[in-house]
Structure formats: structure tokens, C-alpha cells
């Protein structure tokens, strides 16, 4: 790892420690937030120290079954989260996207993925020992691995996630997972610890239940969870599935929310607009959006494709089957596979159950598979008289839209909601 790379990972760790100091100094900040930043610190410290500790580093794309890596004592590096946290804390977003373009990736490729290729090109991320990727959740993830293998000169494994859920497809996925374990055993010389995987599965099942409890609590009026807090839930499952720290975070959060619900305290002082978020808001605008939420009393209370887990249960006595089962239950994975009537109906049901006033669709310029659902979701929600704001934006590229533009759009939307 070059020192420049180490510095970048170090910058995430440093930023987390500054945030942690601030959290500790402010008595009314959520305790769960503290646990969250401690988890991030631990995650990135392991990546920073990987060589020094003689560990094996596996880079992997989003919605990857990281639990397998933990069960094999391999250090995971989530390419999307690591790249974009680096960018967030070093201010290098544009540089990374530009480097991705210079590596040959055209503007067809979403900025998150152009940035990842850029990060490996300029060595902003450490070269992994292996690259792992899957087709969850789109063509960009499916196609990203080979270029990274080339850029880092490492071997890789592509996990082919089937499109639908027939029995044959589930069996295919289990075979793919087994193939990946064999590959990792060969490459790392580390053995799969099946008992450990069973324990992780049991813990993940607990975590999914906690996620469901948290969702249930967010139904309260006023809603108790921070307006944009759902991103913590996402990141947690990306980075730490089945880890005791993640359970601690979820339990702490659940208890905090329970307390707030009992006390009828809302996340914002004067809750006026209950929102449904469809897709991810621009990362670099999180604090701006949070401030605006407080100003207008607008809170995201449910995200059907980001926090709402599909039905199902994991069985620790069948660990590999459970890893496959989990990957079908992940909220975002509901966007993969055919967009069936049942999935569309669920969005509408959730809007009613969570007493939504309006929905916000963050239309990411490069994200084709989500944007192609804008009209469908808008029509679905309009059937139950819920307006939807479509906000052209970019998850990571700050040059796409200014704070003023976003503010203006939201103000107009809130006026519309007022009149509804």
C-alpha cells in the first residue's frame, strides 16, 4: 500500500474520530450514532492495517455476501463505500470520476462506478489480494470486476446472481457461493469456518428482525428516526453483516426509537411532511438535507428499496442456503428481478401504512435501472393521491446539482404538499 493510499484510508479514520469526539461532547446526540462511527473506525482500521497484520484483503462490490469473508477471516473492502467515503473526507470526488474516465470508462457508466475505477487507477484504494463482484444490482456492478482485476493485477471471482427466484435459481446461487468459497480457499490459504458462518447467520437473522422492529417504530406519528438516518442502516449491512457490533447498533437504535415513540417525540421538532425516499440522496449533501428537513419538518419515514426487508427467515443449520436466502431478502435487491405487480403493490401499501404525504425520487443521472422506474412509481403513488418529486441528481458528483437548485425544488414540492 502506498503512503498516499494509507493517507486516504487514514483520512476516513481521522474524520470518524473527530465526529466521535463531537458526538461525545454533545449530550443529546444518539448513542447509536456513536456506535455507528465506532464501527466505521474499526472497519477502515482493518483495511489500513491489512498488510501489517498479515491479513488477506478482498475487495467486493455492493450487496455482496460479506458474511462469507468474515467466516473465513478475510478482510473485506466494500468498493463503493470505501471509494465514496474517501471522496467525502478528502474532497476528491471529481478527481476520482475523472480518473475513471481516463481509465476508459465513458459517461454511460454511473459515477459511483467510474469513481471506483478511478480510485484503483490512482491508487486511492489499496490493491486487494482478490476482487469479488456480482451482478447485484445492475450492469455496472456486473461489469466492474474485470477492469479492477486488470488495474490491480489481482485474480477475481464473479458471483452470478440469478435474476429470478425459482428453485433451480436458488440452487445455482448456492453453487456460485460454494465456487467462491473454493476460490477464496485456494487464493488465501484460509479455510471456511462453517461454525462461524452459522453463528453469523444466526446473528444476521437477529439483525433483520431488529431492522423490521425499527421500521415498525418509524411508523409512529411523529416519526422518531433522524430524517436521513436510513443511510446508516444501509451502510451497516454493507460493511458489518452478522457482526456483534452491528447488533449492538441496531439494539441501541431500537431502544432509542422506542423511548421517543413512548414520549411522542419526533425526529424533527414539528413534523409536517412524511416522505418516502426512493433511491439514495446525494451523499455530499447529507448535512444540507438534514438541516433542510428540520427547517421544513420533512422526514423520510420509509424507503421500500433501502430499509424494508422482504419476508423470509434464515436458518443457522443451513448456513450457505441462508446466505443465498438473505441475498434475496435485501431491500435493494427488490429492484432486481422482474418488477412484478406484487412489488409495485408493496410500495403503495407501505405508503399507506407509513402515512406518507409525498415521495422523493433521487434520479441519479447514471443509474439506469432505478430511473426506469420513475414513471411506474409515480403512477402507482398517484393512484393513491401521493405526489412524487423527481430530483435529477448524482449520488456522488457534486457538479451535477447545486444546493440552491435542490432547495428550490424541495420548497416547490413542500408548497404542493401543503395544498394537497
Amino acid at each position, binding site marked *: 500500500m502506498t503512503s498516499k493510499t494509507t493517507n486516504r484510508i487514514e483520512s476516513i479514520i481521522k474524520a470518524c474520530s473527530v465526529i466521535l469526539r463531537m458526538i461525545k461532547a454533545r449530550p443529546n446526540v444518539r448513542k447509536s450514532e456513536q456506535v455507528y462511527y465506532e464501527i466505521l473506525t474499526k472497519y477502515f482500521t482493518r483495511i489500513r492495517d491489512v498488510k501489517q497484520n498479515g491479513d488477506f484483503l478482498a475487495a467486493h462490490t455492493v450487496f455482496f455476501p460479506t458474511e462469507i469473508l468474515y467466516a473465513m477471516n478475510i478482510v473485506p473492502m466494500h468498493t463503493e463505500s470505501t471509494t465514496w467515503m474517501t471522496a467525502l473526507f478528502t474532497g476528491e470526488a471529481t478527481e476520482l470520476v475523472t480518473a475513471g474516465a481516463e*481509465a*476508459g*470508462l*465513458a*459517461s*454511460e*457508466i*454511473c459515477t459511483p462506478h467510474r469513481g471506483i475505477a478511478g480510485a484503483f487507477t490512482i491508487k486511492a484504494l489499496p490493491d486487494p489480494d482478490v476482487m469479488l463482484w456480482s*451482478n447485484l444490482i*445492475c*450492469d*455496472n456492478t*456486473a*461489469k*466492474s470486476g*474485470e*477492469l479492477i482485476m*486488470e488495474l490491480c493485477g489481482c485474480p477475481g471471482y*464473479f458471483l*452470478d446472481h*440469478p*435474476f*429470478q427466484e*425459482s428453485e*433451480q*435459481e436458488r440452487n*445455482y446461487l448456492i*453453487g*456460485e457461493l460454494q*465456487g467462491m468459497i473454493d476460490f477464496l480457499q485456494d487464493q488465501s490459504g484460509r479455510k471456511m469456518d462453517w461454525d462461524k458462518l452459522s453463528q453469523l447467520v444466526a446473528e444476521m437473522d437477529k439483525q433483520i428482525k431488529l431492522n423490521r422492529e425499527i421500521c415498525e417504530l418509524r411508523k409512529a406519528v411523529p416519526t422518531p428516526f433522524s430524517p436521513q438516518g436510513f443511510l446508516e442502516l444501509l451502510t451497516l449491512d454493507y460493511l458489518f453483516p452478522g457482526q456483534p457490533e452491528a447488533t449492538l447498533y441496531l439494539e441501541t437504535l431500537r431502544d432509542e426509537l422506542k423511548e421517543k415513540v413512548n414520549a411522542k417525540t419526533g425526529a424533527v421538532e414539528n413534523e409536517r411532511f412524511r416522505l418516502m425516499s426512493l433511491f439514495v440522496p446525494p451523499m455530499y449533501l447529507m448535512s444540507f438535507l438534514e438541516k433542510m428537513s428540520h427547517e421544513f419538518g420533512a422526514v423520510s419515514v420509509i424507503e421500500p428499496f433501502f430499509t424494508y426487508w422482504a419476508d423470509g427467515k434464515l436458518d443457522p443449520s443451513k448456513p450457505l442456503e441462508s446466505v443465498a436466502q438473505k441475498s434475496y431478502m435485501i431491500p435493494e435487491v427488490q429492484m432486481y428481478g*422482474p*418488477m412484478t*405487480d406484487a412489488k*409495485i403493490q408493496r410500495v403503495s401499501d407501505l405508503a399507506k401504512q407509513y402515512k406518507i404525504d409525498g415521495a422523493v425520487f433521487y*434520479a441519479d*443521472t*447514471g*443509474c*439506469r*435501472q432505478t*430511473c*426506469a*422506474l*420513475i*414513471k*411506474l412509481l409515480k403512477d402507482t403513488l398517484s393512484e393513491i393521491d401521493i405526489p412524487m418529486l423527481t430530483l435529477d441528481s448524482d449520488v456522488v458528483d457534486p457538479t451535477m446539482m447545486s444546493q440552491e437548485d435542490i432547495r428550490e425544488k424541495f420548497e416547490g414540492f413542500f408548497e404542493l404538499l401543503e395544498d394537497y
Partner: protein
Amino acid sequence: MLEKFREINLSFPQTSYIKEHISSGKKVIGWLCTYVPEEIIHAAGALPIRITGYQQEQELDDGTAYLYVNNCSFSRSCLQLALRGEYDFLDGIVGGSTCDGVRRLFDLWRKYKGTAFNQILSIPRKFTTQAHELYLSQVTQFKQNLEKHMGVTITDEALTKSIELYNETRALLKKLYDLRKSDSPPISGAEVLEVLDAGFRMPKEAFNDLLSKLINELSESSATHTGRARLAVVGSVLNNPEFIKSIEDQNALVVTDELCTSTRYWSDPVVLDNNKSPLEAISKRYLNNFPCARMYPSDERFDRIIQLVRDFKVDGVVSQIIRYCAPYAHDLPLLIKKLEAENVPILALDVEYGTSGSGQIATRVQAFLEMLEARKQ
């Protein structure tokens, strides 16, 4: 002979052959991707036709309103035709989980247009034994669903006959392409695309007949096409012959291609084998065929492109990638590297589906041709 193919394309999307088929009380099923086995539709007694978008580049207001501006113009173009009722004659559509563009096109078509029969096949991205088993199960399911929908039984005998018919098409198209290997081929690249387009919009029985006649005619003809460079066109789906014509108008010769509307469509035959059911033979061919950029590992595709370059004595490669076509755009940096290693220059064009290749594209092609010429000297 070429006039005949041209005429068929003029009445797109509902060609005279399709009208005739419908008037005899038979069904028409549209397919969206080369991983959908046409033989099964044919063996069920329906006419399989390929769903394509507008022939020329077009304002895509409706397509864009539904699929959003950042989906490829191929899917938007197809959806717009469907929304405007141009594909209402279809009794069903069959798609594959090939790429984001097509899977969402399928979702929206099903929701906003619907057809009596619709199915999307899960297509694995690998070539492993397990992937073959999965694909076979999907194809089997497709056959059963179609049987149920059409109230027919698709026998092995009928499948075998359909395979033979489609293999004949493949063999004839190979013959046609072989003619292009010569130093001065009797047919241009644009004309070949016209032939292929027509083939998607008519029964194969009639197509094979016309195609055989064309090949005979060409074998005996004294027509020759020459140019200052021999090119291969690779990349996203392409149906507009004007695009190739605009390249050839600059005195270049497009001698081969790697497109799902041409070489990747016809390249490998279904190998019938007594130890295998016809359905297994079909599955094997479709999953192992000249791969699309969606498949892994990409080297399978790159190696076959390089083979084409050698077989057709190609001087340079033109990559045309439709905006927002992520599978092909992702492959591009790696393909460039492979071709560089072979000392084959590549021109990478960002296009919209249906483009005629004029304006800025023409200027870039011109510069590319000059560079190829300079290399030769």
C-alpha cells in the same frame, strides 16, 4: 434480389409477411434478445419476430417519459413503438435478463401494454455446467408456458424440424459472410444489414428461399466493392443500414461485424446429437453462442472478435456504443487493450440507436480512415 429485402423493411414493423401470417389465423410472438430461442416459438406454430426500434433516429418523447432519458435509446425506441400501438399485432413478448435496458423495457411493456403472453428468461452470465443446467431449466419452462398458452404440444420432432430450418438460415448467412472475405466482395456491409433486418421480420422458410437466391445471384455477379480500408463494426445493437452506408460512402468497406443483429445472431449452429434432447441442444447453442458483452469472462467475446479480425483481414475496428449501454461501454477499455496488442486500431463512437452516422460521426470516421491509410503506406 436486394430490392425484395428492402421492400420488406419498408413495411416495418408489420411487414406483409407478418400480415399474411396473422390473416391465416396464426400467432406472432416478439422476442427481445438473442438469448431467446426462436426455434421453440416456431415449433409451437407461431411466428417469432425480433422486436426492434425505429429504423432511423427519432424523437423519443414517449419512450423517454416512461424509461427516463438515461436508458439506452434502443429500449426507449422499442417501447415508444409499443406505446404507440405499432406492436399491437403481437400475441406475446419474450425477453431475457440480458441487461438493465432490456429488463426494464420488459417491465414497462408488461405493465403499460401487456400482451396475452409474456415471459422473461433468467439468463446466467457464465458458461459453466451449472449455468447450462439453469438455462436449460428456463428454456424448458418457457416451452411449457408457451404450450399452455397456445394449447399445443411442442414435440421433439417439431423442435428438430425448427432447428434444421434455423440452422439452414445460419448456414446461408455464413455463406453470405464468407463472400465478404474476398478482397472485393460482391455485397456491401450496409446491404448485408438490410438482408438481416428483413430476416427478423418474416418467416424463415421464405427468408431462406430469398437468401439462397441472393447468394446464387451474388456468386455469379460481377459486382465488386472495394475501399481504402476493411473495417469491422462492433458494439451495441444496430438496425439502421444507413449507419454502415455512411461509413462505406467514405470509400471504406465494412466486411464483418460483431453485433447481436448480425454475426452474434447467426454464428453458431444448434448441434443435434442423438444423446441429447433437442431442447438441450438448443440451450447449449444459445448460451455458448458468440457472447454478448454481458457474459463473463469477457475474453470469450474478445477472442472471437480477434478471430473475426483475422478471418476477414480487417484493418480497423469501429466500435459503436449506444449512449447508456453499460455492458459494451464497460468492455471498451479492455477491448482496446486487446486490439492494441494485435496492432489493430479502433475508433470508439458514442451513438444513439438509429443514427445515420452523419455529421460529427462522419468526420471522425474520415479521420480514422486517413489514419488507417497512412499506416498502410
